[in-house]
């Protein structure tokens, strides 16, 4: 669990008022959440082990320490003991490269693996990296042929760079069984984690963009009356389509929000963020561009021709441009961090797409003023969707098209090919990785500060959480906000091709020019992005990109 989420949950339990609000949320979620089997009221039998580890150190007992991590690691050694003899890896040395964000990630892994090292006899050396150094370190290792680690903690977007180049080792069947991959939420199953049908990734995390909105705006009688008086269709409520998001954003311009400040609608980050800003245009575009049944929404999988200048994407860019004047002043200088933490949490704006952090920080951050008035849903849909194959906009019989953006996909643990050149070392590496990605240990990581979000269906068994000491209403509220996105059948999965952040980075530069009015139209700006993407594809190698892109989509 992300630290802020943990803080939010534990802090929120002290609030009786939130408990009552949350109870209502559970009821609503039980009715509305159709994708998560674990969220049903049917109780699952709890294993004693899972209950036991969830009591370490105990909810509201302060943040876990290294001793706690070691205890959890010790208790979760069952899988290792089934597959490895005691002392079997005596003399084996492994190098693990991962992150040190917020003193989590590798810090936890060290604790978890200490008992594993004691049991197996292997020794692990650690390479800790700050997030900002991670990309450059990994790319340089790959480019200069100096891969000096056996196990790596890595985001799925880099699979193209690593797995696509044959640097990772294929997962043996015994590991697949040990970690129970069938338990993963839908979008983390193949093709994510696989290349050319081979499985490489042990997931330890999940990521997606949610839609965060201010409930006080949409419960305001004053705004409801104004909405009706201006002749808008439908009742005043949180939008569920981008068409409505646009309408609401324009409607709110010039009005006063429930705090008495200037009201604003959707907040677009118009400034780049090292490539990560492009995820936010994606979140606007997927409902238009991701046609059900067609996995491709960013490139044509046959030619790698960018789709970013097709009518769906141009419409998304145009949408942004249409409401730029209705957004807060200086929005052109707002990056995603600003929209989330300096605007939305600080009370400016009513709608925002972001990762799960925003909703939780709303209740724990000192800078937040919206703790009690924030609601969540999956990203808005669209009344019509663009079919890239026919070149037509279609209205689906099933209603609006929803396509939640699985932005970044989350962290995984991968074993490098160099480790498996030696059979014993390879088995040791996979055993260590499987220990970290085990079903039980992952529940603990979901429940306590770890840097990781829930990513298995079994993580959504609310009774396990409440038995551990969590308030049922709050945990249901938190889990439900993400579960529907994870398991959506039309989720837009990020292409895991080499250099994906290069495409995003140049797109940010061109979008900045588009938003600054340096191109005559959204189409011209989108064409500039497409032209820049074509150059990157040619530079990296079109044929290999097509091959790897198709592999990432599971198209073979």
């Amino acid at each position: 669990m992300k630290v802020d989420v943990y803080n939010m949950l534990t802090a929120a339990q002290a609030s009786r008022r939130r408990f009552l609000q949350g109870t209502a949320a559970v009821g609503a979620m039980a009715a509305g959440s159709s994708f998560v089997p674990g969220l049903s009221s049917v109780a699952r039998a709890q294993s004693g082990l899972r209950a036991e580890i969830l009591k370490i150190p105990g909810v509201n007992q302060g943040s876990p320490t290294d001793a706690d991590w070691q205890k959890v690691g010790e208790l979760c050694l069952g899988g290792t003991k089934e597959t490895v003899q005691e002392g079997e890896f005596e003399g084996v040395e492994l190098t693990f490269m991962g992150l040190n964000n917020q003193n989590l990630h590798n810090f936890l892994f060290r604790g978890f693996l200490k008992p594993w090292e004691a049991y197996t006899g292997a020794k692990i050396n650690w390479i800790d990296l700050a997030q900002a150094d991670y990309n450059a370190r990994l790319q340089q290792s790959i480019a200069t042929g100096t891969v000096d680690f056996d196990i790596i903690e890595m985001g799925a977007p880099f699979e193209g760079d690593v797995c696509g180049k044959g640097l990772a080792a294929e997962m043996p069947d015994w590991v697949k069984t040990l970690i129970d991959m069938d338990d993963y939420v839908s979008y983390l199953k193949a093709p994510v984690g696989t290349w050319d049908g081979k499985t490489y990734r042990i997931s330890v995390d999940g990521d997606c963009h949610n839609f965060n909105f201010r409930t006080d705006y949409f419960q305001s009688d004053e705004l409801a009356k104004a909405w009706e008086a201006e002749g808008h269709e439908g009742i005043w409520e949180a939008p569920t389509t981008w068409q409505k998001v646009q309408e609401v954003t324009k409607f709110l311009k010039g009005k006063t929000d429930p705090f008495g400040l200037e009201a604003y609608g959707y907040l677009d980050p118009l400034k780049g963020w090292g490539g990560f800003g492009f995820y936010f245009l994606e979140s606007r575009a997927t409902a238009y561009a991701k046609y059900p049944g067609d996995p491709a929404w960013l490139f044509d999988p046959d030619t790698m021709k960018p789709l970013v200048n097709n009518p769906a994407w141009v419409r998304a860019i145009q949408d942004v441009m249409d409401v730029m004047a209705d957004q807060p002043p200086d929005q052109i200088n707002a990056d995603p961090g600003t929209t989330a933490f300096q605007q939305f949490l600080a009370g400016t704006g009513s709608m925002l797409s972001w990762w799960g952090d925003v909703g939780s920080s709303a209740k724990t951050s000192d800078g937040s003023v919206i703790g009690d008035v924030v609601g969540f849903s999956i990203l808005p849909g669209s009344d019509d969707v663009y079919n890239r194959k026919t070149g037509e906009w279609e209205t689906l019989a099933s209603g609006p098209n929803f396509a939640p953006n699985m932005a970044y996909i989350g962290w995984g643990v991968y074993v490098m090919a160099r480790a498996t050149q030696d059979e014993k070392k390879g088995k040791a590496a996979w055993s260590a990785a499987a220990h970290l990605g085990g079903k039980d240990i992952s529940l603990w990581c979901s429940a306590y500060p770890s840097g990781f979000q829930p990513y298995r269906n079994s993580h959504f068994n609310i009774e396990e959480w409440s038995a551990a000491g969590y308030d049922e209403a709050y945990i249901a509220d938190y889990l439900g906000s993400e579960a529907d996105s994870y398991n959506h059948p039309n989720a837009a999965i990020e292409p895991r091709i080499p250099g994906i952040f290069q495409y995003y980075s140049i797109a940010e530069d061109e979008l900045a020019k588009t938003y600054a009015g340096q191109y005559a139209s959204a189409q011209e700006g989108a064409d500039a992005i497409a032209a820049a993407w074509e150059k990157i594809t040619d530079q990296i190698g079109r044929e290999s990109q097509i091959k790897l892109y198709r592999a990432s989509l599971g198209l073979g």
Partner: protein
Amino acid sequence: MNLEGDLLHTVQPDNISDRRKRLGRILFWSASALVVLVGALLVLDDFGHDLGFTSWRPLLYAYVIWAVVLCAVQVIERGESGKRALFVLPATLFVISMVVFPLLFGLSIAFSDWNLSSLDGQKFNGFDNVVAMWNDAFYWNALKNMVYYVAAIGVEYAIAFGLALLLNADIRARKFFRVAILLPLMLSPVAVSWMFGKSMMEIRFGPLANLAKFLGWNQPAFFSDPMIARLSIMVMDAWTWIPLMVVILLAGLQAMDKEVQEAAKVDGANAWQSFWAITFPLMIPVSVTAIVIRIIFKLKLADIIINVTSGGPGGATDSVTSFIFREYRDRSNVGYGTMLAMVYLVLIIVFITALLALVNRLTKRPA
């Protein structure tokens, strides 16, 4: 007394035997041959003949051996005068290793197509990167912005000179102000970015934004309009670096001969005449130093831009360095990014050389 030949501290004339000289030559050529041999083998290995090399490190070892032998040979062949060469030679070799070799390596990268994500690795591509640069609107835009940024140094210099004069004058709490004015210089530009760009200039709650509202600017957006955004960056950068110019100019003022100014006073010059006719001309050499150093710092301007505007809006605040940073770090475009940096280096050298020549001509005393 012998007034010819070696006048330094030669203890005794060296009588180097031919045998010893021959040994020195053999050692030198052997070490040189080793470098060439290892280099050739590595090139062969690189072009597909698997000779078992896993890195280019053997060439480094061969070079180190060659450097040691070269030093030893100086003594073997030339005796005492060779020993004197050893005072300089290791340092020279070190500089060559740390500057010349990386520069050559950098040039080899600059003339290649090398995207870290490409399966093909580094490929020589001649002048393709130069052509791409010529057609790159982002690069030219960044260069244009650099002209604005460098031009702003004129204003910075005027402010710095004024502050230096104040601090040189007999004012109250002079020591305190002299220390206080250095504080911005001690801050990292990244901290300045957050303190000013992201906090004090924040449009809703920033104190500077509130002051601007109080003064009648309805929506004080410091980074939305291209020219205002550029000015805001200039102001933040100036706030950080003006103290450096102040310190240099203050040192110049303090070193100035007071008698000249006193003589001017005696001759009846008022404060302005004293400054314009005496102080300013005498300060020109120091001013040139301060401005040149400031230009060099300005040409590296990147951190504030990266943190506050990411080059926006629409590239209005982009500097060459911040653009290269995105091209190199975010887009892993190593070959092209290096070429941009090399061209920028050449432009800087040409610009600074021309500037110094101009200043030299302007300040030359008439014969």
